[in-house]
């Protein structure tokens, strides 16, 4: 290979400053590690497997390091629900607001108010398009908040609804959204009791943004949280995954793909109530929204310091979701759902829990997908349909269609 002298600048080829900075930081880190581990140094080259272990340990240490937001501007990755979102929450928000109620970073905060146990949650809805097969931003807003409360084991009661409207947004559309919200609220048995309206100039707010907050009461003594997962626990999902995310991706119209697919948005409080009644050994509940089932599995593994092993064959995915995912090169495990939950149940109650889910219309296709293991902690593994194994890591950015 010849290297023609093509350098545009007289000083030679430029090099990316951010790379040099990253490498300097890495060298400094390695140097400080070296002084700490000097006594372990061995002059002989280590056998392959042992070397690989050391590198993996180095990676684990790097991943456990204090989260820091490296970017100086927010990108779409920060909203995707994966690594960047988590880093932003931990490094910026948790840092700013730090208090014990916030720390668990669950879907809803658990509060004690004058002796009553109350759950509180908030969510913002910025979906585009606003109207899609299976629902609209209104249903999403109500169901999403109802579900976050349900995941805390709370009975959802009251919602607030704040609207940020773009100048020029059709009033008829707003009426349609409000009607959807009322229908969803009625179905879930909650009421919208307070709200707010703001209008911003044309070009902002994509038509309509909605923020909802909700409160509910916790009327049982089961302590739910991803940190409660224990080795031996059974992991189950309430139905086929990926429907909502794929629906939205296709509904945006840019990909010119048509399919018989619609969002799975639904209120899960009825399903959760049945589950709680049937399985006191329930340890955790999460709804699989942004980031999909894969993100939740990682949250479980990290929060509880356990391993998670799931089996690809057992994860329900509709044929059409699979087809669209294959076509676009996306993994359904990372695609958002809006009406599915992941439950972690102690083994004695697993059968009851599954039966309770399946008895409810929203859980008819519930399935056991895996188990919690002691080792390796913090790692989620998938037994592929093909029989091999691989890791399921947190997503870096949005699941983008790939061509390669």
């Amino acid at each position: 290979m010849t290297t023609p002298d093509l350098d545009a600048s007289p000083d030679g080829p430029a090099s990316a400053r951010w790379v040099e900075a990253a490498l300097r930081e890495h060298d400094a880190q390695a140097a400080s590690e070296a002084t700490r581990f000097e006594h372990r140094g061995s002059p002989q080259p280590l056998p392959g497997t042992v070397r690989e272990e050391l590198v993996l340990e180095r990676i684990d240490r790097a991943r456990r390091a204090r989260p820091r937001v490296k970017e100086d501007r927010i990108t779409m990755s920060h909203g995707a629900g994966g690594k960047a979102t988590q880093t932003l929450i931990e490094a910026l928000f948790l840092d700013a607001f730090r208090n014990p109620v916030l720390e668990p970073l669950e879907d809803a905060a658990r509060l004690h108010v004058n002796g009553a146990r109350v759950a509180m949650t908030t969510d913002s809805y910025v979906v585009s398009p606003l109207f899609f097969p299976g629902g609209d931003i209104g249903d999403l807003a109500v169901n999403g908040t109802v579900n976050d409360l349900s995941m805390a084991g709370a009975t959802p009661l009251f919602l607030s609804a704040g609207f940020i409207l773009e100048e020029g947004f059709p009033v008829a559309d707003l009426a349609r959204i409000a009607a959807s919200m009322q229908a969803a609220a009625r179905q879930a048995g909650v009421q919208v009791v307070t709200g707010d309206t703001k209008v911003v100039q044309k070009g902002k707010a994509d038509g309509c943004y909605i923020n909802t907050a909700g409160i509910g009461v916790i009327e049982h003594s089961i302590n739910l949280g991803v940190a409660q997962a224990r080795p031996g626990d059974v992991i189950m999902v309430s139905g086929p995954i990926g429907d909502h995310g794929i629906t939205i991706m296709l509904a945006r119209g840019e990909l010119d793909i048509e399919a018989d697919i619609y969002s799975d948005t639904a209120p899960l409080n009825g399903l959760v109530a049945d589950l709680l009644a049937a399985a006191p050994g329930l340890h955790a509940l999460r709804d699989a929204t942004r980031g999909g089932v894969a993100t939740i599995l990682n949250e479980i593994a990290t929060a509880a310091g356990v391993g998670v092993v799931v089996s690809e064959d057992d994860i329900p995915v509709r044929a059409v979701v699979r087809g669209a995912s294959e076509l676009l090169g996306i993994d359904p495990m990372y695609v958002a759902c809006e009406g599915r939950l992941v439950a972690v149940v102690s083994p004695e109650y697993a059968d009851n829990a599954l039966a309770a889910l399946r008895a409810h219309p929203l859980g008819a296709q519930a399935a056991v997908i895996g188990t919690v293991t002691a080792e390796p902690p913090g790692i989620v593994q998938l037994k592929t349909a093909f029989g091999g194994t691989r890791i399921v890591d947190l997503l870096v950015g949005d699941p983008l269609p790939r061509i390669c």
Partner: protein
Amino acid sequence: MCLGIPGEVIEFLPDQPDLARVDVSGVRRVINVGLLVDEKVEPGDWVLIHVGFALSKIDEDEAAAALQFLEGIGQAYEDELAALAESRIE
């Protein structure tokens, strides 16, 4: 770039001979079949789809042969396993 996925040709677009609607597991998209202009592509044929183009017509005979080879391997394996299970040295 490698992501090519098999899809079934459903129909050609009436006014555009270059374009066909394909189906992948219930997902439908219009793709350009211009690269297969030398072959006879008909509804019901399967093609390999890559970035909105059909790159190749899938040869069903070759596919069947490939599967047969794999079945053979699988069967031979099963037979061997069975033989292993049945044979006793003691």
